[in-house]
């Protein structure tokens, strides 16, 4: 493998890891969201390197575009950039780090013992995963899951609107009593 390729892949891995660390360590939620956008775009570059341009574009538009815009909207709507510094649950931080390290060790052991494929994958042909072939597969073999995904998205949209709607004043101008608010 050429030196430039090795350099490119290690730079991409470095950006992925550093942006992930930035996500879980930054105090401000806005910065965390921007680190996550950087992470998504870098992984999209990896998808392009793996010969999956359609997935890479979907990643940039769906994840780095719309989902993160939704996140930023909610962060700013709630004013939740920074939580007040309070005493966390005792021992929670140590336990969390211990569990994460245990998971990491478990995965490394699993990969080492199972013997993951280490040889390089074959070079993908240019017409392996064009949007055309993906579309053909999506609307032929995966038609039923595709329709079910549409149903899931519709249900999620209706649920989100239902959960965040404002109690609307009725015709006489009085707010209807919400059951959970009337108790207080």
């Amino acid at each position: 493998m050429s030196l430039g390729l090795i350099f490119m892949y290690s730079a991409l891995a470095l950006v992925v890891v550093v942006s992930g660390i930035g996500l879980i360590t930054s105090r401000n939620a806005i910065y965390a969201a921007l680190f996550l956008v950087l992470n998504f775009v870098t992984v999209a570059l990896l998808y392009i390197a793996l010969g999956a341009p359609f997935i890479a574009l979907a990643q940039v538009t769906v994840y780095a575009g719309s989902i993160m815009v939704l996140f930023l909207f909610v962060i700013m709507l709630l004013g939740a950039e920074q939580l007040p510094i309070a005493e966390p649950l005792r021992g929670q931080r140590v336990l969390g780090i211990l569990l994460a390290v245990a998971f990491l060790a478990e995965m490394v052991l699993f990969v080492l013992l199972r013997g993951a494929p280490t040889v390089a994958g074959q070079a993908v042909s240019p017409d392996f995963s064009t949007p055309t072939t993906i579309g053909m597969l999506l609307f032929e073999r995966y038609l039923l899951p595709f329709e079910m995904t549409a149903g899931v998205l519709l249900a999620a949209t209706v649920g989100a609107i239902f959960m965040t709607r404002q109690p609307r004043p009725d015709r006489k101008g009085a707010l209807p009593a919400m059951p959970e608010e009337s108790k207080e």
Partner: protein
Amino acid sequence: MPMSYFIGLSVVMFAMGILGVLLRRNPLVVFMSLELMFNSANLLFVAFSAYHQVLDGQLFVFFVMTTAAAEVAVGLALIVAIFKAKRTIDLDQMSSLKG
């Protein structure tokens, strides 16, 4: 590029997502860590799809993306509803089952 590169990167990303879920108290950052874990699984899907020359992995990434979008919409709506009821979104404060 050898597959071990993608496997290692995916494992590290997943572990960082677990760390974020376990350590952070801001539910929005917890959601973002969940997205990071989805992303690591997606990377492995695409890598093995290219390795085995089978296109189905990329379609699974497509389905994971749409499901994640639905999950984010519902989750953020839940967070907004909880904020309206309790005026805080600190995860440590959410210790009661009754509103």
